[in-house]
């Protein structure tokens, strides 16, 4: 099933307003809800800066274009939704219990950190995730995809950002409220149809009639399962935000600050040039 692509818009919100934790009674179903925001999707990007202090870290360069495109693809994949179900951390949605009608927003972030010790950083990340109730969905070399409970999304990012130099940071949101509401309506209709077909099946007088109803019933059941699967996927994405994390090893061969400085000798002086691991 190809999930519908939700509309993407830009939202002007402050970092502190992002990812407001839902109230405890609605946490399971709602995950993230931004009361008081404009109702659009957002993209919040800080390049070469500290997450908590964007004025720091001006010596860093943004990652290369192909790397950023790659990160965008990862984000897009997670926001649009893969075909497969996320079975590692399914979020059970109590049936017939409506999700917050105001907003259904999925969040995904991208963080690139330069650290001296990549192996140790990975361990620290896994520890932080364990405490937050999240998990590593994928790890490939120095790239990781993390799933973090929505209320802990921002605190975990802040914590990870203290591990090294933040070379890139971005958050993207996707408002799927419209799709979610359509899905709920469709599920409701399909359930009614399903019940009616079951009644018709009971009332079938001949084998031919029963087979015909059964055929319709199977088709409706399949469609209902698909809709429920998509709903579960959206709930999962809403409850567990996604962070694409790239770790780079700091060293003298990495990017160095540059300018039109006629004496660039200091570029080669610093911790990166001197420290051993």
């Amino acid at each position, binding site marked *: 099933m190809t999930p519908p692509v939700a509309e993407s818009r830009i939202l002007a919100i402050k970092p502190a307003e992002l990812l407001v934790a839902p109230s405890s009674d609605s946490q399971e179903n709602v995950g993230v809800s931004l009361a008081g925001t404009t109702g659009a999707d957002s993209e919040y990007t800080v390049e070469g800066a*500290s997450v908590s202090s964007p004025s*720091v870290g001006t010596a860093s360069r943004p990652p290369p274009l192909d790397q950023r495109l790659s990160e965008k693809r990862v984000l897009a994949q997670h926001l649009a939704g893969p075909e497969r179900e996320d079975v590692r951390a399914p979020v059970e949605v109590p049936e017939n219990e409506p999700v917050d009608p105001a907003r259904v927003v999925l969040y995904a972030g991208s963080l690139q950190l330069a*650290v001296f010790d990549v192996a140790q950083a990975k361990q620290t990340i896994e520890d932080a995730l364990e405490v937050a109730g999240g998990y590593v969905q994928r790890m490939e070399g120095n790239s990781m995809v993390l799933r973090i409970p929505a209320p802990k999304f921002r605190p975990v990012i802040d914590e990870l950002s*203290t591990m090294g*130099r933040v070379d890139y940071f971005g958050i993207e949101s996707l408002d799927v409220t419209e799709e979610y509401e359509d899905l709920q309506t469709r599920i409701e209709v399909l359930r009614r149809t399903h019940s009616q077909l079951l009644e018709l099946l009971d009332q079938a007088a001949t084998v031919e009639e029963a087979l015909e109803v059964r055929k319709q019933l199977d088709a409706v059941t399949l469609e209902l399962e698909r809709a429920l699967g998509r709903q579960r996927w959206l709930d999962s994405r809403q409850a567990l935000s996604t962070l694409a994390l790239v770790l780079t090893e700091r060293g003298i061969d990495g990017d160095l600050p540059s300018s039109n400085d006629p004496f660039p000798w200091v570029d080669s002086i610093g911790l990166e040039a001197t*420290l051993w691991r």
Partner: protein
Amino acid sequence: MKTTLLLLMTLTGCSSAFEMKTPSGFARVEREWDQITYKGIDDVGLRVDMFGNLDGGTLDFWTHDLTSKLGARGYQLVRRQPIASSNGVAGTTFEFVVDAQVGEHKFFIVSLFVTDEYRIVMQLAGDESLRTAYWSRNEEFANNLRIRGCHAFRSVCRGPTTTSSSTPRAAGAHSHY
């Protein structure tokens, strides 16, 4: 510039602008004509680099260049003191506190020596917990260092060293001292 220096040194029979005796507790990792690196048993790095000097380049001039550029990169200068190599070339040692974004709780100590021909930079870096121990050992390392490139009747090798601290303070940075 380095090629010219190498050629010059080859023609004049000089092997290097400096010599370093391996300090106790360290092993030499690499030795090139313009650089030498050591690794301590506690993972502290000790590195000496040679750069050519330029006409007008004094200890004061390069001190300002070094501290202001490192300051812009998040290295906050907290202390400095005069130092001398084993053969009396004047220099200055700078101790930096590195902000968390840059340093991950590491110490960084740099000693700069300037002769008529060369700038010699001795860097020390390691875990924050070793800061005090290595600050006090810095003079010992300088005593293991012999620097060439001083011309007779010129004053570059004799300093003077400045006393004022001009490192731009990183936002939110504070001194440990």
